[in-house]
């Protein structure tokens, strides 16, 4: 049986050092990330800034998922959780009309494997009079609702998803929260 030389041993140790560093990055960092909680309490008494001048009053008892929430000057995303239900609002620049915004959101929902849009789109409005469209969709093991608004050169997309039981219980609170969506009125 051939013996391994000192040079070959050092070469192999170096290679395993590279593997260990890569493993630290690809497996270690996600493990540390998973070990730390990502949810923060959020007040249901005051508007939460989503980004690009858009605010919403979160539902009572909701927590904020800081791993998805990213407020910004021209874009923004906020993810609230109510038990097993996800309530996500995304804001970004948009130069089309409400119908094309609705069509774009439906396309992105149905681009996910197993996702299907259900029923027609209905008109909705926020307390401030912001007009929007809403609809429903199904996904493997869960159901969802979506809503979209266009204002000040922005599109505001709302997606809500969870298992039917949880969704039915929390949907009134979430829809009440959606009606509190406001923009700062500055054209972008």
């Amino acid at each position: 049986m051939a013996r391994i030389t000192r040079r070959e041993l050092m070469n192999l140790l170096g290679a395993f050092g590279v593997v260990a560093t890569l493993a630290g990055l690809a497996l270690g960092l996600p493990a540390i990330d998973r070990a730390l909680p990502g949810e923060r309490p959020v007040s249901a008494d005051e508007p939460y800034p989503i980004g690009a001048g858009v605010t919403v009053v979160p539902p009572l008892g909701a927590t904020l998922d800081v791993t998805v929430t990213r407020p910004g000057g021209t874009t923004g995303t906020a993810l609230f959780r109510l038990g097993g239900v996800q309530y996500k609002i995304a804001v970004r620049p948009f130069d089309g009309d409400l119908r094309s915004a609705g069509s774009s959101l439906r396309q992105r929902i149905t681009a996910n494997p197993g996702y299907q849009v259900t029923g027609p789109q209905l008109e909705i409005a926020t307390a401030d009079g912001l007009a929007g469209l809403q609809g429903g969709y199904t996904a493997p093991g869960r159901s969802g609702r979506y809503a979209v608004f266009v204002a000040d050169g922005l599109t505001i997309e709302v997606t809500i998803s969870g298992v039917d039981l949880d969704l039915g219980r929390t949907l009134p609170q979430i829809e009440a929260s959606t009606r509190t969506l406001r923009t700062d009125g500055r054209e972008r």
Partner: protein
Amino acid sequence: MTAAAVRPAQGGARISALARVPAFWVVAALLLAGAVRMAQIAGRLASAYPIATVAAVLLFALLAVPFWLVVAELDFLEREPLELLVLAFAWGGLVATSVSIPASTALEDLVAKLGSPHLAADWGAALAAPSVEETAKTLGVVAIVLVARTQVNSVLDGVVYGAMVGLGFQIVEDIVFAVGAVALAGQGDQVQPVIATFLLRGFLSGVWSHTLFGALAGAGIGYLVVRRDRRPAHRVGAALLAFLGAWASHVLWNSPLLGDGLGNGALALLGILLLKGLPPLLLILWLVRRAHDREADYYVGRLGTLRDPELITEGELGVLGSGAARAAARRYAGQQAGHAGRRAVRRLQRAQARLAVELSRASKETGANCDEIRVQRKTLRGLGHPEAIAGPRSWRHTASTIVTTVVAIAVLWVALSALGGA
């Protein structure tokens, strides 16, 4: 110029020779794992957006060609083996990308968890991506050193391998971003978002991107490996400094600094591109130029010891070390002796470069290259153009340079207007 800065390899790097090194099999396993992971991602993208995926692959593959040629041409005198260039490119495109995707996401999440969502939104990409990606890419140059230590024999070699790793990363990342833009647009399988991403990431920011950062980090590894005349602490310090330089350039590029300061429009976008990208670009180009000139001086110096004008003349010694002068000599031969003259000068220059490397290895097998030089010299004499030197600057070349520059500026302006000024 001392030999300490250049340590010539004693031969090529055939796969059969590489396979005898234990690290090769570890690196091969990593490449295979990276390929499987990236194939899964590519499969998902292609099944959802087949036309956009094909368009993105074609566009960015085309973009890779000039980058590849420039990087490979950097080390004209002592060319790197194709096998190792491919390995470096594959590391960047398969290993570094597949590691960076989960690691960057996790690190950005940690910035949000330990700081705040605001901090992550503003600085998450600036802190997470450079830390993870520069590490994963630099490990690619380390892998090349482990697999073929003798092929990294100057700082310039580190630059070339680092740039190749960066290029592989840049191309694959751009393809993923382009198809991601299609998904985000929500208009179905369209190519417009791919073209917009190509203009922005490939054309406008492609020059000061991963290829450049990788070159800087690679220079540090090259210095660490080659300059054994320096103390270990000095070499490690230099390698760390180069890595930090690459990291800092990447942080500056991803940072929100100047994001709102220059307003909107094409001029503002151009200003941001120049202010954020130009300083690292100039610094790295200066370092690459220094490394290139040191290596060129070394190899041209070997040829100078021959004192045989049949193999290389005084004028050719002055030309061989510079890429621009070599090109000028080929153009001059084209003007004086047509296509045949141009081809003969190119072959002569390549044979002279190979001879310089053989001489630096103290090899006794210089006969084939000497014969090739004599054949090309005879051809050139027959064409009435015996010496491969650069001629006086012609008005046609000057006009062509001006027209090319004007066209490049016009294309840049159209791209800036479409993306930032519209």
